């Protein structure tokens, strides 16, 4: 059994080493793949706060991923066309600045998570899954029918958005930016899990009645977790859109929600690095198996089945055993 923290360090080392190798070997596509893995990892770190800590099985996180994507798409679209988003009640213009876009993505997806959370946290179990799924479909069909922003075809952005002091058109610089954000988000998730809030949320997942008896509101704890979770996944959506310079309703699809959840199950639910390991393995499989066969999802399905049946803690659980007791 490997200690979990060594595995985590090894994973981070891979995220640094592989792109370095890609530069020297002149394999730019590998950098794109790694950026994809990093962005997926951020989305899944977000979901893991709701799912792993809060026990909220959300099949609607594509909503936040998509909202982040469209926040980028819409702002950049108006900036490249030199048109205003709206002139009333006050003028809002487009922007090509990543920090502003990220902020917009985080605000919009937090608000959506707040509303969806308030409505869906009245239910639990299968009903919660179904309601979050339904919200995802609502946004999906709304995006399809929103002709002003490309409808079914989505929106293309010609030039990647900018970040002060960096040349984001250079793949490795954009990758570094995303990796930096992943580290920040991981730091946040780590502090959160050991915080007073994390303790209460963790208990609310296991025994809500105990949390009530201690004088706290388990539903409100879960709601806050859901909002934080949605905000992070929204940020990932904005990065994903910038990676592809394209947004489309697919970002809102239930398959997207499912994939974000698969990253976590692959890596290990509730494990800090579960989403990171899962996203990396997923992108690798997608690349290699996808090259071998169009039906690579079948192999992915088999792998998931093995993991769920034999290692409750995902790949990390299989390699490191169950989680160590925190101190």
């Amino acid at each position, binding site marked *: 059994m490997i200690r979990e923290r060594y595995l985590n360090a090894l994973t981070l080392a891979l995220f640094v080493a592989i792109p370095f190798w890609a530069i020297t070997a002149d394999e730019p596509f590998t950098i794109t793949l790694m950026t994809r893995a990093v962005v997926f990892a951020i989305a899944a770190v977000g979901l893991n706060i709701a799912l792993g800590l809060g026990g909220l099985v959300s099949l609607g996180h594509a909503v936040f991923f998509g909202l982040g994507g469209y926040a980028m798409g819409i702002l950049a679209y108006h900036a490249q066309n030199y048109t205003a988003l709206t002139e009333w009640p006050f003028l809002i213009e487009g922007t090509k600045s990543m920090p502003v876009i990220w902020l917009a993505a985080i605000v919009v997806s937090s608000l959506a998570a707040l509303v969806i959370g308030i409505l869906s946290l009245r239910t639990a179990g299968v009903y919660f899954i179904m309601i979050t799924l339904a919200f995802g479909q609502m946004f999906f069909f709304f995006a399809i029918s929103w002709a002003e922003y490309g409808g079914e075809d989505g929106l293309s952005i010609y030039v990647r958005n900018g970040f002060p002091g960096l040349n984001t058109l250079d793949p490795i610089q954009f990758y570094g930016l995303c990796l930096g954000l992943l580290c920040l988000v991981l730091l946040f998730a780590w*502090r959160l899990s050991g915080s007073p809030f994390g303790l209460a949320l*963790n*208990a609310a997942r296991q025994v809500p009645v105990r949390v009530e008896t201690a004088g706290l509101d388990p539903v409100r704890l879960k709601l806050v977790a859901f909002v934080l979770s949605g905000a992070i996944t929204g940020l990932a959506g904005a990065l994903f859109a910038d990676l592809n310079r394209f947004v489309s309703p697919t970002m809102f699809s239930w398959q997207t929600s499912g994939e974000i959840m698969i990253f976590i199950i692959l890596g290990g639910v509730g494990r800090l690095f579960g989403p990171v390991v899962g996203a990396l393995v997923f992108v690798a499989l997608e690349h290699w198996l996808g090259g071998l066969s169009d039906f690579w999802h079948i192999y992915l399905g088999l792998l998931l089945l093995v993991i769920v049946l034999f290692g409750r803690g995902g790949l990390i659980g299989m390699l490191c055993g169950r989680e160590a007791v925190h101190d």
Partner: protein
Amino acid sequence: MTDAVLQTSGISKSFGALRASRDISIDLKPGEIHAIIGPNGAGKSTLIGQICGTLKPDSGSVHLLGKDVTHQPTRARARAGLGRTFQISSLSMEDTVLQNVLLGALGASGRPWRFFSNVLKDTSLRETAEEALARVGLLDQARMRTAELSHGQRRQLEVAVALTQKPKALVMDEPMAGMGSEGSKLLTGFLDQLRHEAPILLVEHDMDAVFSLADRISVLVYGEVIATGTVDEIRANAAVKEAYLGDEA
């Protein structure tokens, strides 16, 4: 009656055709242990659920420290000073013993909205938590995973979590169930002291414990309180003997 810490007035509750609580009026006075006894299915846990707010009575009211809390949620009653231990342990099994008591201390502090600080390094929470563990004799087990505790130790932990809340009244549902005789004896001695900090409404099957601890006993049969009195009165009560105590008394 105004000095009662906890009081139910005529609470009734039915599950379909089953009348689980029938017009129950009981109270808990400062410094006392009021035991509720009765056969399985008599409605003891249902009564406790209504006192603590996890169940809603069909009629009647619950007063805590003189205030009507009938329509308040469990968490509000907890914050007002009502401590509770469960018949079936309701602990975070995946977490450590310390984390479970910390949750109680955190709830009492009313400050769960802290996202970055390390809860294990919060000295005030930690002091409250460790003091409670020490009092029930579980300090050495603080770092153990709760799932690894013995049954009796889990019951002790239930009590410790309730203590972290500095309760003004305690409601305990069969705290000694499944404990060995050694454990029950220790807990009996502990509750005997505890009553001076917070009066205890004690549901318990262990008659040795009940007879040695209780200031008053109420007997619940088919959702109805058929008698309330001192230990001697209840032992002598013919109806109680017939309905419940049998040869034990």
